[in-house]
């Protein structure tokens, strides 16, 4: 079962492929305002994370999160 550190590491790697100009990604990075993800990209990223972690991640977690850290914590709660 994936923990926060594993999830954050996978998420960080995935976000590097989604973000333009390879912005610096830190836990406080805001997915939309800092990393420039749109709604379609965010949903695509969730599907990719499902494959990386081999678990189901409901889209319902998305409205609760704004930052990379918040998303990693939400995914960790789903995984738990």
């Amino acid at each position, binding site marked *: 079962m994936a923990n926060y550190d594993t999830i954050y590491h996978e998420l960080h790697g995935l976000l590097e492929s989604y973000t333009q100009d390879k912005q610096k990604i830190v836990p406080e990075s805001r997915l939309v305002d800092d990393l420039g993800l*749109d*709604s*379609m*990209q965010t*949903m*695509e990223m*969730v*599907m990719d994370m*499902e494959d990386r972690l*081999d*678990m*189901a*991640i*409901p*889209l*319902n977690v998305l409205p609760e999160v704004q930052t990379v850290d918040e998303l990693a914590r939400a995914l960790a709660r789903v995984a738990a």
Partner: protein
Amino acid sequence: MSVFDKFAPIAEVRRRIAATGVDPLGVPIDEIRSATEAVVRGRPTILAGSNNYLGLTFDPDCVNAGIAALQDEGTGTTGSRMANGSYAGHLALEAELAAFYGVSQAIVFSTGYQANLGMLSALAGPRDVVMLDADCHASIYDGVKLGGAQALRFRHNDAADLDKRLRRLGERAAETLVVVEGIYSMLGDQAPLADLCEVAHRHGALIYVDEAHSLGICGATGSGVAEHDGVLDQVDFIVGTFSKSLGAAGGYCVSRHAELEMVRYASRPYIFTASPVPSVIATTRAALERLRSTPGLRDQLWRNAERLHAALAAEGFTLGAPPGPVVATMFDTPEAALMFWQGLLDNGVYVNLMLPPATPNGWCLVRASLSAAHTDAQIDHIIDAFVSLGQRDREAAIG
């Protein structure tokens, strides 16, 4: 902080669009002349982006049915289906839709959008799981959100991916509603419905198919992809709209499950809205009869679609799907698509423009939809407009 602050990104996008001098949104139709012709910004224009697949909006049977209903039943019901809004025509249309699909149950909604909103919010609550094809229409996403179900996505038209994701759910797969479309609106590509049904049923899931862009298009009787793929008896719910092949506005759901009747009492988008206007019900019934009795309309639509598709493919355009009533050409940048769209309009051809973030995979699409009512001369004109603009762009790239 104002409630309007959240519109700042939209306002910025609108400013950038305005700066180009090209606005593809809310194009004013000064005058509508036929199912395929209009006056747009003072110019006679062929409508090749209106989803009027069977061209029935000016069909005499449909128009006369509407006129008679206006005279006999007035301008509206002014009431919900739960109150005073169920006229004989509403009940008759539900019976006719059920008979058309060979099932026992049908519900009519006030719009196609509300059909998805109403069905999905009633069928799938917070304890349920919905597995959506990634490219599903906004009305499907909104309906799932309204109901509060656990929403998951699978890769577009990928039965193996659906299988993998349902397997991850374990026992919960049997509590899952798989939602797909028959023909997808953006590219016009068709779902591999037989494969998707097999996967869904193997996991004990139910399957829901939105045939908005496939009613009147395929299948022996024209009911859509489920019929075409021989899986009408395997699909649990079919949802559709009156606003494309049937030339009106409204929506429906049909099902072989008797429990569909209970959705009437659980669906807020069904209950808390005015029922469809009687004249719209009348024209829809007439259009359904034309669809059912005149397969030649479908044949003509496909002839038109295949002509345009073949001509654009021969000119080297990148097309989004095999031949079908939706012909979407793909461009590398939003700017290129925008200028091509305007070029078509300047040449008297209206089509749709679809840009990210509204499109999957960052596609920039110039999307045409064909009609059975397009004449050979109109198809020639559409082809000529695409070809001349394509040549212009190639010369500009070289120059």
